[in-house]
């Protein structure tokens, strides 16, 4: 059974594409056939984050319009087995995506035996974001510890549970909270919302916390999903997210400052 997972947020720039790339690469590295689709029509970026920008020939919209086959447009990753990328189109036509077209691509991926189809949503609550979430079985809501991001996450959750296909058919989309750009020092200092605060406000299950980390920028500079950087905290935190998503029960890491950890070590260690 294939699963469609949307990575969404409402607010822009919170880490959807970074998370989509990491999550998809992580699922694939654990042996699951995974496709990641860039829904950000007009602002294609997933290809760049995944380092396949020079291999883009056809895109999502070409496939929908019958200008290429899905096979021609899908880019097979050279580092991770089982990982495929479907790039967004650079067209400025806002109506390039439509339900029928998106559905046919998703159905073809399902028929091709993909286990997971990860949809990287654009920001906002307009057509592109709607198309990315419409066919989702599950949603990863990417949230930064910051007021406007939390509010937008709440809005997108409302839309998920009222306007997605699953919701229209009377079901519920499974929700996961992914907090990114988390800074334990600032939380402990009292000037950043804590993971508990955010979870209490949004009241959905927490899938993981990704720390603010310089390695994310380095990863994007070099076109490697950050999850492949096994040394980095962000990479390890993303790997934990993938394991948790697949049902493993593992504790959160990197959610306490070095200072606090040191204190407890002295106390108990």
């Amino acid at each position: 059974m294939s699963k469609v997972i949307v990575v969404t947020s409402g607010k822009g720039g919170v880490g959807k594409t970074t998370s989509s790339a990491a999550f998809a690469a992580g699922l694939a590295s654990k042996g699951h056939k995974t496709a990641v689709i860039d829904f950000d029509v007009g602002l294609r970026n997933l290809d760049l984050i995944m380092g396949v920008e020079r291999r883009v020939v056809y895109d999502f919209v070409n496939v929908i319009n019958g200008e290429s086959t899905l096979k021609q447009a899908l880019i097979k990753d050279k580092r991770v087995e089982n990982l495929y990328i479907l790039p967004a189109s650079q067209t400025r036509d806002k109506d390039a995506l439509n339900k029928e077209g998106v559905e046919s691509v998703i159905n073809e991926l399902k028929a091709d035996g993909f286990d997971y189809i990860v949809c990287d949503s654009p920001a906002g609550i307009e057509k592109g974001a709607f198309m990315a979430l419409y066919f989702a079985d599950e949603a990863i809501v990417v949230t930064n510890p910051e007021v406007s991001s939390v509010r937008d996450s709440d809005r997108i959750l409302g839309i998920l549970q009222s306007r997605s296909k699953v919701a229209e058919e009377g079901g519920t989309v499974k929700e996961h909270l992914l907090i990114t750009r988390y800074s334990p020092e600032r939380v402990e200092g009292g000037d950043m919302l804590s993971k508990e605060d955010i979870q209490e406000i949004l009241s959905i299950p927490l899938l993981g916390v990704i720390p603010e980390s310089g390695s994310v920028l380095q990863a994007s500079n070099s076109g490697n999903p950050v999850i492949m950087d096994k040394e980095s905290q962000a990479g390890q935190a993303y790997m934990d997210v993938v394991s948790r998503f697949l049902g493993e029960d593992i504790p959160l890491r990197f959610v306490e400052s070095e200072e606090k950890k040191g204190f407890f070590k002295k106390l108990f260690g």
Partner: protein
Amino acid sequence: MGLFSFFKKEKKKNTASLAKERLQILIAHEHSDTSTAAPDYLPKLQEELIGVIRKYVKVDDNAVNVKLEKGDNFDVLELNITLPENN
């Protein structure tokens, strides 16, 4: 470490809890809003209904009243059409 740095730290401590409080109030408000507010098609519906009724009966602008009542299991759309006395 003087009194000054103590206050600075205190002030900082407040912003996260202030953020949380503001968000909780706002989101509670936004949720209640969407569950009680009239859907945005109501004015248009009212306008079009008046148009249809006018094909048959001469009524004035406020002859049609459209109301949506939210129930637990279903919503009721209530239409009130006031006809002129001697039609």
